[in-house]
């Protein structure tokens, strides 16, 4: 009999655990600790509540932190400098509710649902990465909540006909556009492409192929490789034999290391190397020093770009403001995040309300010049007004070389 009592107690514990899990943890789940100082919103006529699930932990922890700082930059600015969002006659304070999605798709979905249902946010800002954005944007769509984002750029998610998803950044397939155009102008004839076989790099590579062919450059080969690769010698050997003018490659930071090293080891010396992720990261330049000289890379945004707007001022002004808040210069993921929030802000003001339909229409109609570049969404919800920038490592410095409007240095071709 004692045994049955114990068994019963155990089951009661389970009930408690289950319900605690379902109900209690919503309250338990403290919002991820943001660095933003608490702002007194009582001075405003009301509050616009915005939700975001970002990766505090897991494989996107670094980018997640940058994105959060980007969003928080806007919150600080709009509440402290700008004086609140103008809606009709009133001035509304802005508040962002954050959760940590642990870089995990299930958790991200769970948290977005929670933001919509429990926290009753008016709008959503995007998570980091295409994978997480694809899953969560479907939930936003199904619940008719607008999500503006700047760090999930795969084309596939804009082919689903969603009405509530907007991207301020350049879509993945256009990552290489300005670089390819600049190279075509320098007489490049042939190219090869290698990309990691995951969502985002594949979108980039497919776009690159289109842009190359549109500019009359022949694509000699396209090679895929899996995640977590440890050796790219074979790919580079193949490419060396083809002798192309340009090599385009990329996926992740580690791939950039592998490509640069393998090219060096195999004596593969194309006139230009364009690597998707990596060259815009100062750490890579520092670690590979000479080997990375002359390598090109796409960038959404750089502080040196010649963009300016009525909000935040110029790109350089934004960078200075950001540095004041966080003690480090902004990477483009942070700028994209700030720009997403800014686009939403402008649309709310234009709509004069926080009503989803009104704001959606305002976003569609939005035409604005900002520190991040021009913003204008097409029918898919993608900002096609802003071109993708291209940087080149020159004497160990990362300089914008294309498009011409944003360039601060001339493209060096062929590289050293």
């Amino acid at each position, binding site marked *: 009999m004692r045994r049955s009592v114990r068994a019963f107690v155990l089951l009661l514990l389970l009930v408690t655990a289950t319900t605690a899990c379902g109900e209690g943890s919503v309250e338990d789940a403290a919002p991820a600790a943001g660095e933003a100082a608490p702002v007194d919103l009582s001075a405003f006529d009301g509050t616009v509540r915005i939700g975001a699930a970002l990766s505090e932990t897991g494989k996107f922890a670094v980018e997640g932190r940058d994105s959060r700082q980007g969003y928080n930059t806007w919150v600080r600015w709009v509440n402290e400098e700008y004086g609140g969002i103008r809606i009709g006659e009133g001035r509304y304070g802005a508040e962002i509710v954050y959760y940590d999605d642990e870089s995990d798709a299930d958790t991200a979905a769970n948290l977005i649902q929670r933001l919509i249902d429990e926290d009753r946010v008016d709008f959503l800002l995007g998570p980091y990465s295409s994978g997480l954005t694809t*899953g969560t944007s479907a939930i936003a769509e199904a619940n008719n909540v607008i999500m503006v984002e700047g760090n999930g750029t795969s084309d596939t998610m804009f082919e689903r006909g969603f009405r509530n998803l907007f991207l301020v950044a350049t879509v993945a397939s256009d990552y290489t556009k300005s670089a390819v155009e600049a190279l075509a102008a320098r007489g490049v004839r042939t190219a090869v492409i290698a990309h990691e076989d995951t969502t985002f790099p594949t979108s980039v590579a497919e776009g690159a192929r289109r842009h190359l062919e549109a500019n009359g450059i022949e694509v000699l080969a396209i090679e895929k490789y899996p995640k977590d690769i440890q050796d790219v010698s074979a790919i580079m050997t193949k490419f060396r034999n083809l002798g192309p003018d340009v090599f385009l490659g990329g996926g992740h930071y580690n791939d950039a290391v592998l490509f640069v090293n393998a090219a060096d080891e195999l004596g593969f010396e194309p006139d230009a190397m364009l690597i998707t992720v990596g060259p815009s990261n100062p750490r890579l330049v520092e670690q590979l020093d000479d080997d990375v000289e002359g390598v090109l890379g796409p960038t959404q945004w750089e502080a040196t770009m010649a963009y300016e707007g009525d909000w935040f001022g110029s790109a350089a002004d934004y960078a200075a403001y950001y540095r004041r808040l966080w003690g480090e210069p902004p990477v483009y993921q942070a700028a994209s995040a700030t720009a997403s929030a800014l686009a939403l802000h402008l649309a709310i003001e234009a709509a004069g309300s926080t009503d989803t339909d009104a704001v959606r229409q305002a976003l569609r109609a939005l035409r604005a010049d900002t520190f991040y570049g021009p913003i204008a969404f097409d029918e898919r919800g993608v900002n096609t007004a802003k071109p993708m920038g291209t940087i080149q490592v020159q004497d160990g410095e990362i300089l914008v070389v294309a498009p011409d409007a944003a360039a601060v240095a001339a493209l060096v071709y062929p590289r050293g």
Partner: protein
Amino acid sequence: MSRAAPGAGAVARRWPAGRAVGVGALIVLVVLAVLPLLGGTSNATLLTLTLMLTSIGVAINWNLTGGFTGYVDFGHAVWFGIGAYATAILISLQSNGPQVGWPPVPAILVGALVAGFLAAIIGRATMRLKGPYFSIAMLGTFVALREIVRVWSPLTGGGVGLTLPPYLNRMLFYYVELALVAALVVGTWWLRRTRFGAALMAIREDEVGAETRGIDTTLLKTAVFSFAGLSTGLFGALWAYQNTFVDPDIAFVEVRTIDAVMGTMLGGLGTVAGPVLGAAALYWVRELLWTHLLDAHLLAQGVLLIVIVLFVPRGLVGLVDRRGTSLFELWGWKGWRLEGRRLHRGPAAGGEAEAAS
């Protein structure tokens, strides 16, 4: 504790206080079933509960082979991924080409069947292996199938994956999964009392002995392995439809296997209630760790895992019923026994060593 008829089956002895547990389980089920109807239960809560039910379901399935049959599968999540992918392929045909995509119900069912079918083929080959070799072969199968899905891009969308039309009725999925988990619990409870269940346990205890006594061990263990694959495939198929998006790296996640193993161990290996209690508790503990420890949550999980394995080998159920299966009765454990809290080597008091090698 009185027992019903003599020879009520292997199970009755191994599962304590059947009636109290049964009543308790029924109460939990009723609470979970009525909760959403009372109103005030948000979609977010439903989603949380659904995800928890998913991990409970996968743990129950893992326990079928890992706990009941003694074949510790380190690649079980592969069936989740296969179920998810098969369904996604069938449903998304409409958005990709001229063909008409399948409606969800048949797509989900066929998705599960595909997983079960593949599990039958692969299980037939890998279940010849014993102990860690089986585990490693399944781990290899997991990675190999994930990479094959990635390479087979015309069908699977390669690394880009497939998107499904969003259909997010949280209430519906919650009830479907609740019913599935309830059915699985009742099913495993019943299975343990049947000849089939007794035969599985005979395989776990002594496969050669079972075989010489006329049990077609290959057939039975492959059957239970395929069923586990099919059932986990079903959860995968439902998940794909809720997640609206699959790619190789989110459909095939090692963590799902690890959670199933850890949850089952925490609850009690080879018991009916173990995986349910364990997976629920793990889900809950993990939520706590994540919210309160952030960076250190992985560390805490690692420590927790080691502590469970070394010090609570019979799991939560074992705290109540000493006769639950201990880890030490699996694999090459023949010489080891657990008496009280301590491990002993050598024959049981007054007993004879069982056949080794």
